[in-house]
């Protein structure tokens, strides 16, 4: 679509629609909607990392007064499926059932109860007798595929539902490989070959609201689930699958939710809440404790990323070889697709003539990995951007110049786009917009790169303190091409307002507001005139949900198309009222305006069509899928101080310049970037699961698993670099994920600049920095 000369509502920092009510503390979350006399759900977790349940006796629990339902593998049907909230058929293996006779990590589900109070529910859990046959666990992903390793998924019914490599007998949850050109020959002929192994930790999203779900049996025999989810429609489908019910019997409502970041792209507890409500015939509220959230919800795939790059002395790139070993934990949720993303969101950034990419995701008896903002790109970008920094130093050139020289440009394509999809071939695309060059230039200016890079005076030691500066370049995607779908419905009311119904899911990102801005721009009204209802499976059209950086780009286009459809109907009615041609009528300031300036309000148009003549409801409806996944681009810059005595790394300044196409709402786009960047800095410096030798998480509270607080925040600058993506609504691309990928490599590069050592294992804790300094 062509670029309009100017926007009225798009590009403006319109206040987030739900912000006033949220600032008042209005009861808008799941936990606030629990009805009186609602039962309390609780889950019994496994104490063992790997064990078979020899016997389970729930009779004592069932007899306790106030207990209304007890579930375990002996009384719940076995339906193999995945918890990953993805499109159907899912690319994640069917290796999970609601309750199994085997447990595969500490915290894995054994049983669940619903009782009148939390105290009774907890007493009921204690009354459940379980006899375990403890099995040897697999705790090291490097050992998981060795012959003789214990088999975690030895059940015969675990299977993949799409044709992809899946070998549970080798603990292999997914495998991907692809090759372009002749990388072996290219490496032999390269002047410079650099290699490294980069290790990223188990880490978690930690939304401040844990997973929670209210399940209510309705009088007509249906079940209503009010749940904190990013994927209401996938939740409906997967709960229906688990309970062996048609989707028509399930109603999923997403209220306001307290953060997701990918953790809630998982249909994690809705099945249990629904079953407890079904069995008891009573409303049941199930909420994970913070410890359960850490141990039993989802994490970022911990990875060992091996990377080799080759180049010539003149700076030409020769070849790249990216080898990923991903630890998916006890279940293969998102195992394949996160692995694919390591290649597909990192390799196309530079114009590599020869490429090899292989990725294995392995099962271990550790907490389950899943979708987490960045989705594999985070881990692989750490490796790539660290080695590109090394290459620049080897070539004696400025690392910004190296990126500028080799980054993919507008109109160009990468063989990776076609080679790597989500378990199948990808989709060929050429770059329709890129602002990376400007991101690099504006970011460098903001951090003062020219004054600091290579300047010995600026680097002069102050006691034990050393200063350093580092940078990286990034890309992500916007939706999954030819897979993701969003629908939108819009109707005109008597006062000239509109109801916008979308399946798209606002998890605090502000997508309800962004989508209202898109509709308002088309319809020539203020954003207040658009009343948004979202994420209700009974009321709104389908949408895959909030993941893969898709909502603004994909659902936004559905809204634009629906609004254009409604606008055409408005013009037709207005043409009659104004005695003008429909094609010449413009919609602006809440009116339909004819060429001579004569106008009629949308309220008048609505009343005319609803009550007076040729009566009909003016309403627009549209669906959208994308043929492309246009990458947003970004450049990040970090300035650090390293204390060589304590090993403490302090990020003093951080600059993120991002090209997200047109920022439909700049304030919200900045907020997405700031949140992602700070989460990324926290991940780079301090976030890491620690395990006992038996595979139990040792630091399962915020006291022991540190996330950044206000005092830790560096001076943070966000620069939005506008471009115009022709396939996005009003030129928009995505912004939500890309920002989290930068801090790990940018900080690692800055640490090298400060003290001359490469940190290839994150997080960069004082212990690791001191150890690296000792090794030199």
């Amino acid at each position, binding site marked *: 679509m062509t670029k309009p000369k100017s926007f009225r509502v798009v590009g403006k920092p319109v206040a987030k629609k739900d912000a006033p009510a*949220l*600032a*008042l*503390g209005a009861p808008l*979350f799941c936990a606030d909607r629990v009805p009186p006399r609602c039962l309390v759900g609780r889950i019994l977790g496994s104490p063992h990392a790997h064990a078979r349940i020899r016997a389970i006796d729930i009779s004592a629990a069932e007899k306790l007064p106030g207990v209304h339902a007890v579930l375990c593998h002996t009384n719940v049907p076995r339906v193999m499926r995945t918890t990953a909230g993805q499109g159907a058929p899912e690319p994640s293996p069917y290796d999970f059932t609601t309750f199994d006779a085997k447990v595969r990590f500490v915290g894995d589900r054994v049983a669940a109860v619903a009782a009148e109070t939390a105290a009774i529910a907890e007493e009921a859990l204690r009354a459940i007798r379980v006899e375990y046959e403890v099995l040897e666990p697999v705790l090291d992903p490097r050992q998981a595929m060795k012959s003789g390793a214990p088999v975690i998924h030895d059940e015969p019914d675990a299977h993949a539902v799409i044709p992809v490599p899946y070998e549970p007998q080798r603990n292999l949850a997914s495998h991907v490989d692809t090759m372009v050109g002749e990388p072996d020959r290219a490496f032999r002929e390269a002047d410079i070959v650099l290699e490294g192994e980069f290790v990223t930790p188990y880490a978690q999203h930690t939304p401040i609201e844990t997973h929670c779900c209210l399940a209510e049996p309705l009088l007509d025999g249906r079940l209503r689930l009010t749940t904190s989810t990013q994927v209401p429609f996938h939740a409906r489908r997967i709960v229906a699958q688990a309970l062996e019910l048609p989707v028509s019997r399930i109603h999923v409502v997403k209220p306001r*939710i307290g953060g997701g970041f990918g953790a809630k792209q998982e249909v994690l507890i809705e099945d249990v809440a629904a079953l407890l409500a079904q069995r008891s015939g009573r409303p049941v509220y199930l909420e994970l404790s913070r410890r359960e959230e850490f141990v039993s919800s989802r994490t970022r795939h911990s990875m060992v990323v091996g990377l080799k790059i080759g180049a010539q002395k003149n700076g030409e790139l020769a070849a790249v070889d990216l080898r990923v070993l991903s630890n998916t934990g006890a279940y293969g949720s998102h195992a394949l697709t996160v692995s694919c993303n390591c290649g597909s969101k990192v390799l196309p950034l530079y114009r590599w003539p020869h490429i090899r990419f292989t990725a294995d995701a392995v099962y271990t008896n550790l907490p389950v990995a899943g979708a987490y903002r960045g989705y594999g790109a985070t881990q692989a970008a750490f490796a790539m951007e660290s080695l590109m920094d090394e290459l620049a130093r080897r070539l004696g050139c400025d690392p910004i110049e190296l990126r500028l020289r080799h980054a993919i440009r507008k109109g160009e394509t990468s063989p990776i786009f076609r080679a790597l999809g989500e378990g199948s071939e990808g989709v060929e695309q050429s770059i329709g917009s890129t602002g990376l060059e400007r991101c690099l230039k504006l970011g460098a200016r903001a951090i003062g790169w020219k004054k600091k890079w290579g300047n010995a005076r600026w680097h002069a030691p102050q006691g034990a303190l050393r200063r350093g500066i580092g940078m990286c370049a990034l890309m992500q995607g916007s939706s999954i091409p030819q897979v993701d779908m969003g629908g939108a419905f819009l109707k005109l009311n008597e006062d000239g307002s509109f109801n916008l119904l979308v399946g798209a899911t606002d998890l605090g990102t*502000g997508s309800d507001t962004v989508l209202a801005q898109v509709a308002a721009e088309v319809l020539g009204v203020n954003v207040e005139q658009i009343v948004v209802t979202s994420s209700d499976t009974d009321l709104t059209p389908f949408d895959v949900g909030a993941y893969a950086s898709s909502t603004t780009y994909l659902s936004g286009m559905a809204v634009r198309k629906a609004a254009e459809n409604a606008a055409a109907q408005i013009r037709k009615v207005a043409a009659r009222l104004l005695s003008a041609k429909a094609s010449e009528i413009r919609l602006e300031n809440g009116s339909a305006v004819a060429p001579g300036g004569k106008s009629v309000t949308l309220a008048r148009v609505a009343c005319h069509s609803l009550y007076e003549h040729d009566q009909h409801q003016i309403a627009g409806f549209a669906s959208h899928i994308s043929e492309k996944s246009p990458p947003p681009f970004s450049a990040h810059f970090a300035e650090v101080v390293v204390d060589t005595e304590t090993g403490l790394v302090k990020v003093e300044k951080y600059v993120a310049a991002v090209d997200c196409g047109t920022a439909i709402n700049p304030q919200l786009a900045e907020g997405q970037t700031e949140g992602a960047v700070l*989460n990324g800095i926290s991940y780079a410096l301090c976030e890491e699961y620690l395990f006992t030798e038996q595979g139990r998480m040792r630091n399962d509270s915020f006291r022991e698993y540190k996330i950044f607080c206000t005092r830790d*925040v560096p001076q943070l600058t966000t620069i939005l670099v506008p471009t115009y993506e022709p396939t996005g609504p009003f030129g928009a691309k995505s912004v939500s994920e890309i920002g989290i990928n930068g801090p790990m490599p940018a900080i690692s590069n800055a640490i090298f600049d400060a003290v001359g050592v490469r940190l290839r294992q994150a997080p960069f804790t004082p212990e690791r920095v001191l150890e690296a300094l000792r090794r030199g």
Partner: protein
Amino acid sequence: MQIHVEVNGRTQTFEAMPGESLLSLLRREGYLSVKRGCEEGDCGACTILLDGRSVRACLLLAAQAEGRRITTVEGLGSIERPHPLQQAFVDAGAVQCGFCTPGMILSAKALLDETPRPDEGQVREALDGNLCRCTGYKKIIEAVLLAAQRMKP
């Protein structure tokens, strides 16, 4: 047991269960702005003002509130007349998911009641016990400074 407290300016008598936390009691009595994020005193989502001081309701027994004055976000403003802090959070873009917002606003209010013109460092210190995973805190800190500026006499 009976607990007598003043909540948001109104004298109330509540029936508390033995061993019940103040967080649980307040939520049961309908003060749903007080959020449950960890129940271990680490996240700050259940921050309230107790006699004007910011405290975590999950760490207090309901009985410890006997005879004291409690403020929750419900007591600060209304949709027609929001408190300047509430308005500043909206204007600065400091509300993303909104789950940490009530606790943040109350920690900020405790600060501004004591220190009407704080510098950025003081704001950071006052909010340090309130976790947020959405915003990166930048716009939250800006919102508190904006409110302070607007509230100046």
